[in-house]
């Protein structure tokens, strides 16, 4: 099966670590994906906020190109991108008038047959647990990892069609595959406020802070994410949150691809873990010690 890859803007910028680590583990597993040619921004949070039709048209172009190039399945590692792609697909399926308008504008047909996968769906559904298990060379036994799903992977459930929206477990299963111990905590699916990250930093810090402190209080060594927007808030703003609430957190935030990469025996440097704002040194050291 030809697998299309839709990186989205974040993976080319602020969350380049995600792309680096993703491509590394795919390479290790010998899985080939092909970037959608000349892809464009999905419009993410801004478009749906103020222009519904645009929020469907922008992702629709990417889907139409992928379809034209003969892809049946697309991987969108960014949770926001996968959310918007799925939303566009959903709207085009239910709103014939809008679909007509959009395909006319794009001058491309779209058949709505594309299977859109977020990172977790891709890993569990397309790659498969057995394959991943067979890749684990350095089990992360003893490491406590809190999976943070946020909103975009699971909500709205009728569009996302992924896992249990109130108690998702897919990422925890992946964490278990690496040998690490999933942490059960209360803020798995609470929102970090990403949409207003730049415009309402105080609100975002309040929301993100709750997630980080709860994970820490439940004994997490590390938080694992599958969304660059979540990562930005949890990682980039962590120092600020510590300052605001006057309490140390010090939780490294890893992408699920990075955690898998580590268990595959790929070096942290190759996974670009040093690209994070919160240093993961202590955790990496712990992993080293545990593996001895």
């Amino acid at each position, binding site marked *: 099966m030809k697998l299309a890859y839709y990186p989205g*803007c*974040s993976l*080319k*910028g*602020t*969350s*380049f670590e995600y792309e680096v680590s993703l491509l590394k583990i795919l390479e290790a597993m010998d899985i080939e994906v092909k970037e959608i040619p*000349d*892809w*464009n*921004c999905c*419009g*993410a*949070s*801004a*478009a*749906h*906020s*103020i*222009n*519904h*039709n*645009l929020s469907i*048209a*922008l992702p629709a*172009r990417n889907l139409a190109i992928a379809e034209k190039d003969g892809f049946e399945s697309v991987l969108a590692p960014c949770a926001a991108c996968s959310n918007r792609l799925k939303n566009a697909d959903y709207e085009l399926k*239910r*709103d014939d008038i809008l679909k007509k*308008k959009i395909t006319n*504008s*794009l*001058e491309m047909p779209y058949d709505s047959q594309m299977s859109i996968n977020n990172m977790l769906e891709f890993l569990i559904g397309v790659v498969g647990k057995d394959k991943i298990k067979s890749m684990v060379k350095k089990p992360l036994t003893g490491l406590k990892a809190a999976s943070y799903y946020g*909103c975009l992977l*699971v*909500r*709205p*459930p009728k569009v996302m069609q992924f896992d249990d*929206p*109130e108690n998702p477990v897919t990422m925890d299963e992946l964490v278990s595959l690496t040998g690490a111990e999933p942490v059960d905590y209360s803020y798995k699916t*609470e*929102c970090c*406020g*990403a*949409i*207003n990250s*730049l*415009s*309402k*930093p105080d*609100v975002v810090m309040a*929301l993100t802070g709750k997630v980080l402190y709860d994970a820490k209080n439940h004994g997490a060594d590390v938080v694992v994410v599958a969304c660059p927007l979540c990562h930005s808030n949890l990682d*980039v703003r962590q120092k*600020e949150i510590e300052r605001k609430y006057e309490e140390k957190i010090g939780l490294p935030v890893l992408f699920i691809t990075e955690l898998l990469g580590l268990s595959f025996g790929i070096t942290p440097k190759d996974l670009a873990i*040093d*690209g*994070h*704002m919160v240093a993961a040194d202590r955790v990496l050291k712990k992993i080293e010690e545990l593996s001895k």
Partner: protein
Amino acid sequence: MKTVLNEQSRRNFVAQVESMLHDKLSKCYQCGKCSAGCPVNFEMDYTPNQIIKMTELGMEDTVLNSKTIWLCVSCNTCSTRCPKGFEVTGIMDVLREIAERKGITSKTEKEVQMFHEVFLENVKSHGRIFELELVGKYKLKTKHLFRDMFLAPKMLEKGKLKMHGETISNLNQIAKIFKDFE
């Protein structure tokens, strides 16, 4: 606040919202579960259920000028848990869009609104997001020049902020999409 219900304008507004929403306002029975679970309720001037009720009552000015519609983070917690399956998150999108179309600038939450606008401009001119430019333009527009600036050096050092953006080749198509749907 006092509201004199004007039946015709109420009906018009309700019809506009409902057609964009693909849902009926009368579905909401005001249980308040949306407001109970909303993570940003604490910052809002009206709770989500109040926004729904006021929309049903045709209180157009109030809802379009509310802080709530801009503070909503579209996390979909409300819609996911709504016992009536009402598009609570959807109504926030719809109201924002109507406000935007009407040229209403939020008095208190204009940063949020401007961010969305700048973001789409960025998409329009490159087809993709050029983050450094996005942040820069947003800061110029909001005049919050120094907010978050302390993050920049380290982000640059880590390679998180690229100095050059990518522009897609078929920008004409993007321009057409914007022309057709903006």
